[in-house]
């Protein structure tokens, strides 16, 4: 049976997604690697994977690629897993290529689907900012494979945390890291960086009045999104400049972009990159935003937005 080693960095949604991704390979022996974490977290992992290997936490308890490489490399040597799997997140970007190079494994990065091949692995990933999909493969590797998967691309049926894997503690492998943690900076309350947001609700002048901002704020809150806006909204002082998307504002790369009362001037559209899934709600059927959006709704935003917010909250429970 093939071995898959899953590197866990985030203990909330990620483990189930990675377990789902591992399932693409059929009947496999799955091992989760985690550095640090609590006993209950390890138990949770044991429900998803056949084995959980727990390395000590780095002394500063922060994601340190060099430290993790040192802990994982001996494990790879001993296990010789067919595939190493982790998420293509910021931490993934930090660790995966380094580890793939050091373990001499072909790497398939940022996959949105995975497929097992008799002699290797194939995957689909997005290129050119999501405009094109590419099917890639790595085969006949003597050293095994490495894949990182996109967050949210794999989902697990609810009833799958049924395993009762073993939990094994790993010894600490000492390192003299050439990269050291200094501090974590938490953005000040109120200071938002919409360029890093995955979901944005953008407001245009169709909102008509500052008092109406409340309904989009509620919608953003329900969606777990940040608010963005067009230039006229900033001009009117309804939102701060740090939320303006466009040629004279910020460039954003969200996954979901929901516009409310945005006409779709080229200045505004010029600030949206990365091909997000774009939804437009506007009263004017001829608004250029509908040429750019994936989904369009012509209608009164004052009816639609509160209804949408209500139904989102319903679905999210």
């Amino acid at each position, binding site marked *: 049976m093939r071995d898959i080693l899953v590197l866990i960095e985030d203990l909330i949604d990620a483990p189930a997604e990675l377990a789902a991704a591992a399932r693409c390979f059929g009947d496999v022996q799955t091992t989760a690697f985690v550095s640090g974490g609590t006993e209950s977290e390890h138990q949770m992992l044991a429900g998803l994977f056949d084995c959980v290997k727990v390395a000590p936490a780095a002394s500063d308890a922060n994601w340190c690629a060099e430290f993790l490489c040192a802990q994982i490399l001996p494990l790879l040597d001993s296990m010789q897993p067919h595939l190493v799997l982790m998420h293509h997140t910021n931490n993934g970007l*930090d660790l995966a290529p380094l580890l793939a190079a050091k373990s001499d494994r072909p*790497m398939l990065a940022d996959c949105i689907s995975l497929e097992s091949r008799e002699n290797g692995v194939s995957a689909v990933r997005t*290129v050119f900012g999501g405009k*094109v*999909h590419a099917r890639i493969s790595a085969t006949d*590797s003597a050293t095994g494979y490495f894949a990182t998967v996109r967050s949210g691309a794999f989902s697990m049926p609810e009833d799958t945390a049924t395993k009762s894997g073993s939990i094994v503690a790993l010894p600490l492998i000492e390192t003299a890291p050439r990269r050291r*943690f200094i501090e974590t900076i938490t953005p000040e309350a109120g200071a938002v960086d919409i360029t890093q947001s995955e979901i944005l609700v953008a407001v245009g002048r169709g909102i008509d009045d500052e008092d109406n901002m409340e309904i989009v704020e509620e919608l953003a809150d329900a969606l777990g999104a940040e608010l963005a806006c067009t230039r006229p909204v900033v001009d009117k002082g309804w939102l701060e400049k740090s939320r303006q998307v466009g040629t004279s504002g910020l460039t954003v790369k969200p996954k*979901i972009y929901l516009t409310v009362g945005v006409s779709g001037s080229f200045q505004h559209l010029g600030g949206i990159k990365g091909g997000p899934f774009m939804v437009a709600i506007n009263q004017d059927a001829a608004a250029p935003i509908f040429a750019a959006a994936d*989904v369009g709704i012509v209608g009164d935003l004052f009816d639609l937005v509160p209804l949408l917010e209500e139904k989102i909250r319903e*679905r999210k429970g």
Partner: protein
Amino acid sequence: MDIYVCIKRVADTSEVDIEIDRTGLALTEDDFSYDINEWDNFAVEAALQLKEEHGGKVTALTVGIEDDEEVLRRALAMGCDEALHLSDPCFEGSDAWGIAQILSAALKGKPLDLLLFGTVSADEGAGQTGGFVAGLLDLPMVSLATSLKVNGSIATVSHEVEGGLERVRELDLPAVVTVQTGINEPRYVSIRGIRKVSGIEIPVSGVGDLGLDPNQVGASGARVKLEELFLPPQGQSAQMLEGSDDEIIDKLLDLLQENGGL
């Protein structure tokens, strides 16, 4: 201080109707315009600002065909001191691993303090080349840098981690840093600036110069192979939702859910 910046020329596809060519492995390039990868532009600026502060030399390098020299010239116009073009017919078809092999071979033995990359490229978007090279050269690395300072033999870098947080790290030099957009405001390169460096001869190194085995690189050496390109199922303009408000919103919610928005 010796700083090396690895840059890449990429196609700008923002205004282009994407078409996949007959081979299924490439896009029809007729309408493409090319420029330096956006992230790499920030990396060059970061290198130049460090040079302006600490002195030293900035060298830009790229792996690619003859036309890719354009981005090296642009880097020279921005203020890089030297450029190195890694070009050889047998480099064609290299995957990221192959590119990393070529870059590592070119950098091995160079008096290097800092090696900069853009975190990802606008075309492939895999964000792995910098990490590969760090692994191959056994250098410490930080990715997604949003600020970069050097003090003696130590670089202080803050970089993006999950959840909108930033972490500050210290790196012993020599080190690799991959740069996130927004770390600085890259300077403009005027047409005149480009013309001024048009006469500079940019050295080219091929597979022999780098001491590489031709089978290690190029299509034959690629560990990850491209099997096909295809367009994601999507209409040209918006799918308009119609019906009662309730129906519309339910449909929208389904679509949001499908696209990971809930």
